[in-house]
């Protein structure tokens, strides 16, 4: 099976295997689904809770996520760290097509084998992540030191991307009116760091940072003991970028020190499985299975199984329940 070879190459951190692996996990044809399953199941088991630092970068359109990522990549390359990036853009609901425009800003990827960028269209996942993103992160994590996921923040995607990464960064523009909206929607509870970008544009950044800081104090105390930080940066001239990187590393150290990393990844996997099953079988299917609670119990008890295997196993169980319901 081709996937065995692919897995070997990925586990040996062979960059050249990454495009093929990403094409495979995106492939809907049944035969390829099986191969893809075998690959991902193995990768997740072998990489486990190790592998790359996984960081999500979210925020309003045009806030400078890609430009900031580019600056971060440059800083990481100076430290000889390799970087893999998945950049998700929305699809047009009318045509199903998409213009994938983040690469334009991720210039430091050009010609550097230590950097990898794959753009993904969100397809029918309006405002959400692409289906292949979760699996894509798994592939990149095997090969690169750092993995970033860029996604436009429009509400739903924050919680999805939060489940996918160890550290979530929210990029805000100075004087962004939608900041309040985000706060109301409770989205400020997810990110571990807030970056007020474009400080080169003037003092408005100070105000926005102060507002954010004040807004955060109103929020609930974080359950994992990490107090979110507010940072200022200019992706354009590079100011504050090292501090952003350091904050990301600090959060990672915090997760490792508190044992939060394992728990966070476990929860992320469960959220992914639940999402996938709910989307596939709808609330009726879940109800037939015995309801949300039963499902959560089933997922919670499945220690040691990869998320991909879990989807497959529980899907069978749901299908059996559905078949019984029909009989």
């Amino acid at each position, binding site marked *: 099976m081709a996937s065995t070879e692919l897995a070997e190459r990925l586990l040996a951190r062979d960059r050249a295997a*990454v*495009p093929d692996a*990403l*094409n495979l996990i*995106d*492939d*809907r*044809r049944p035969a*390829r689904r099986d191969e893809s399953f075998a690959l991902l199941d193995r990768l997740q088991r072998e990489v486990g809770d190790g592998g790359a630092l996984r960081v999500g970068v979210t925020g309003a359109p*045009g806030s400078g996520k890609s430009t900031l990522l580019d600056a971060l990549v440059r800083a990481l390359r100076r430290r000889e760290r390799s970087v893999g990036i998945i950049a998700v*853009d929305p*699809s*047009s609901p*009318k*045509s*199903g*097509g*998409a*213009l*994938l*425009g983040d*690469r*334009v*800003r991720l*210039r430091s*990827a*050009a*010609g550097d084998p230590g950097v*990898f*960028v*794959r*753009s993904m*269209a969100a*397809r029918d996942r309006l405002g959400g992540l692409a289906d292949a993103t979760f699996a894509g992160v798994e592939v990149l994590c095997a090969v690169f030191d750092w993995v970033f996921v860029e996604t436009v923040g429009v509400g739903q995607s924050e919680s999805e991307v939060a489940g996918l990464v160890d550290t979530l960064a929210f990029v805000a523009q100075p004087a962004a009116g939608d900041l309040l909206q985000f706060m109301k929607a409770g989205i400020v509870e997810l990110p571990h760091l807030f970056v007020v970008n474009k400080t080169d544009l003037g003092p408005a950044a100070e105000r926005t940072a102060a507002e954010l800081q004040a807004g955060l104090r109103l929020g609930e105390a974080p359950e994992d003991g990490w107090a979110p930080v507010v940072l200022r940066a200019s992706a354009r001239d590079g100011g504050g970028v090292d501090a952003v990187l350091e904050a990301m590393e600090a959060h990672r150290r915090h997760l490792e020190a508190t044992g939060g990393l394992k728990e966070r990844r476990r929860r992320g996997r469960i959220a992914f499985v639940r999402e996938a099953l709910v989307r596939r079988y709808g609330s009726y299917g879940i109800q037939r299975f015995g309801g949300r609670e039963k499902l959560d119990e089933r997922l919670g008890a499945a220690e040691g199984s990869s998320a991909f295997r879990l989807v497959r196993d529980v899907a069978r169980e749901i299908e059996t329940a559905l078949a019984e319901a029909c009989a």
Partner: protein
Amino acid sequence: MQVNSLGLTEAQPENNVIRIVLESLGVTLSKKARCRALQLPAWNEALGLPRPWDQQWSLRIQQILACETDLLDHEDIFDGSVVIEARTAELVEASREELQRVLDMGGAVAAVDNAYMKQRLVESHTARVREIESGERIVVGLNAYTEAEPSLLTTGDAGASILVVDDDAEREQIERLQAFRRQRNQKEVEAALANLGDVLANGGNVMPPSIRAAHAGVTTGEWADALRALFGEYRAPTGVSGGQPRAASAETLEVRERTRKLGEKLGRPLKILVGKPGLDGHSNGAEQIAVRARDVGMEVVYDGIRLTPEEIVQSARDEGVHLIGLSILSGSHGVLVMDVLRRLQEAGLDLPVVVGGIIPDADARALTEAGVRRVYTPKDFDLTRIMGEMVDVVAESHGLH
């Protein structure tokens, strides 16, 4: 004043002479609004570079207008024309509104940076292309009155109707540059560049060190490299991601359906890369192709102008695209396309490539022989048809029909 060349066609190119005359009237008839200097394009504008004879023909238009008519004897012949006054007032008002909008954004630099300007350019071009495609806007010889006698201006040897640049020209230019560099005082050059670098790093006035550099014989390239080393290179917004598709035509829906079906067969939606290799800044065609590909349901990676063949191949591989579309209007298609093809082969990527731009017939044949699947030029105004063919090309390359 340079008049509009975008409306000059590859199809029935002799008609361009009439267009050029009309355009020259537009900028000369009114004495008060008369241009100070006029440069007219040539009849073969959309075919390639003009030869001296083609330029002479355009120059004669001005001379005939100046010497054989009484235009220059009169005051402004539009004085008192209500129609012209009203039309002018409209234009002035619309321009003021536009300027105000840009000022409100923080000025032209901000409007470039936030993609406003580029998006408006792409959108208005999208509208224009659609009108031509649907026949709402008639372009004689292109989408109407297309039946024609063979053009006597373009028959004969391939390339006989445009200026063909001598292959040695590049080599000679490089030799001249090298000779120029050899006779400079290298110490002075280095000192001037060091001085420029210092001033740049300290945020000082660049003019004095630039003038010093010019006197020392520092070349434009070296001067720009010094700036690039500090500031990096600006990547302008591509302007393509704004705007949503208008109501789709029946043909568009049909191609959309074929795109979707092929995506199912391939296991994932069609993904393409539209790339512009080289220093060619003509982005209009690539932008329209990218936007339309999105509108027929493709996932499109478009990274703007000035990519190297190496970057294009890397993007194509990393992004996992099914097809590469190159757009080249600079005349360098020979070298650049071959370079891309060679690198694809070296990378073991069996990806179909299509090319569009100002490509003379003979070159198009050579490119096709080298493995390019389709070549498009300005006469191919039917973008929906181009999209349909790109779907076919991907299907063919996967052995699906």
